[in-house]
């Protein structure tokens, strides 16, 4: 991996990502009239300064080390907590979540819950088909009883089945 100022480029990614979001936020804020944008833009400018400091603190320079000591002494090694998690598992965990959210929106709650649970228990949990079917059915029944019967929530039918 390419190194910039004594640090792997990947370690700048979180701060750079946040900086990009902040700059877009600022650009949008400046489309509003001065009174409306004053507070959000003020906060965003402060964010730019803070993110600048964060970026400098990530460098392998003396200033970077001093900034880390003063302002972030708790972060000894950037990105360290995730070292124990295989990248494929991380991506897969996020993708399963996104897929479930998409299913809920598209086919509705009563269809998405059993499909997701069956698939997750089968392919991630590596359970037998029978256990997966029982688990999915039980959880769907629980969701229906709790939300539709007890709390009287009209469960979303899904975009494909008439949901708005």
């Amino acid at each position, binding site marked *: 991996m390419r190194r910039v100022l004594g640090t792997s480029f990947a370690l700048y990614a*979180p701060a750079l990502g*946040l900086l990009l979001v902040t700059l877009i936020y600022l650009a*949008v*804020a400046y489309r*509003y*009239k001065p*009174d*409306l944008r004053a*507070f*959000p833009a003020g*906060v*965003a400018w*402060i*964010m730019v300064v*803070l993110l600048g400091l*964060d970026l400098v603190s990530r460098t392998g320079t003396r200033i970077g080390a001093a*900034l880390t000591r*003063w*302002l*972030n*002494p*708790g*972060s000894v090694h*950037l*990105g360290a*907590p*995730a070292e*124990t*998690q295989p990248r494929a*598992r*991380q991506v*897969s*965990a*996020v993708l*399963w*979540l*996104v897929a*479930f*959210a998409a299913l*809920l*929106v598209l086919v509705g*709650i009563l269809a998405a*819950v059993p499909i*997701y*649970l069956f698939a*997750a*228990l089968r392919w*991630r*949990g590596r*359970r037998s088909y029978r256990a997966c079917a029982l*688990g999915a059915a039980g*959880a769907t029944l629980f*969701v229906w009883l709790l*939300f539709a019967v007890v*709390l*009287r*929530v*009209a*469960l*979303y039918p899904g975009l494909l089945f008439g949901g708005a």
Partner: protein
Amino acid sequence: MLDLWLSGFLGLMQVRELAFLGIGMAIGVVFGAIPGLGGATALALLMPLTYGLEPFTALALSGGVMGAIPMGGSITAILLNAPGAAPNAATCLDGYPLAQQGKAGLAIGAAASANSLGGIIGTISVLAVLPVAKQLVLLFGPPEFFLMTIFALVTVASASRRQLLRGLITGGLGLMISFIGYSDVIGGERFTFGTDYLWDGINIVPALIGLFAVAEMINLSAKGGTVSRAVGTVVVTRMWSGVLETFKHLGTVLRGSLIGTLIGAIPGESGTVAAFLSYSLTVQASKDPGSFGKGNIEGVIAPEAAINAKDGSALIPTIAFGIPSGAEMAVFLGILILHGMQPGPLMLMNNQREIYGLVWALTASCLLASSVGLLFVRPLALITLIDADILAPLVLCVAFVGSFSVNGEIENVIVTAVFGILGYLMIRFDYPRLTVVIALVLGNTTERSFRQSMAMSDGDWSIFVHRGTSLVIIASIALTLALPLLRVLVRRARSPA
């Protein structure tokens, strides 16, 4: 005064309220026992379910959860060396060695009774302080409220595992998000991009469910395996001897409870700080400091008393100023808002019955949880051996459907997913999440009180330094920001040249 205490107590003594208190307590013990879940996740998941309940009943349920979390956490900390919640990590230091010596029952008995006593002392302190808090809050005008919100953000950021800079950044991010929607202060919409759903701003409930429950489940899924990796032998005897041990060390209980009470009232200072501070002061005060870490019963009693005492006093900043002292209180604040209670002076005036009812619920829950916890030690320990790949999908289902049920808008599901991924990225890249939550909750108050101050002074900024209260808060902000630098300088001065 006494009639309010009584009214709150009698309100709780109804069949419905007691039933929900019991349910909350059971959920609290279970969630407390599972490492990584804890009070914030439990409350975030329950939040939408409380929607159809009366406010008082919802508070009984929440109090039940919050009062019981520490007991669940201490059981797994002692038996499996896997603290259910971060504060229980201090209990592991002597609790687990005791379990290894075959004295798990002694440790659990001591933890349960220290929990109860700590909870009672915390309750007494909050009952004593609440009437004073009402007078204190009335001294606060818009400039002081504005400064208090800044102070809350700075203290929370500085207390975020010694990551002031990252805490401030995530606080800024939370503020930026809180400005989405129609601004009733100025009149005009911001960052809605023509979406009707965003007109009311980001709904706090789906956001909190995402940041806590969903983010933790992604993290658990990414790690894989079982929740607890240390599987010890679950042998539990001599629990009553443990209870007696607590009464033999009442000084330790009192010291721990006092520390917990003081720490709990400071925004951002968590139960972890209270637990470890109580533990280290007990070690320093002991005649046999060498025995700590090897199975000294005082090493269990001290943190447990502090953790539960903290819960009571943590209500003070949350209710009086609308400034939560930690993640659990931030989610609890969401529950208050969901039920039409606006923390601050108005809540202290209009919802006194609910407040006292909540205090009683917290106490009753911690007492009940201690007894129930003792009865269900073994099954609670076994919960932590559930496979993450089974637990995570089940929790995610409840989280997403719960998020939808808040107001029946499917967009809540998308908000929950987005905040869940954001929360996971923050765990992954070591950014504190608590400041985002506090900023999300306080964003509108910050802007409103700033605008009101400016309107009061015709744009003169000196309004922020006119009154003594403001000056005290400004000095506290400056001190909090300077603390990390002072720490470095003190350490440098102490180290040999």
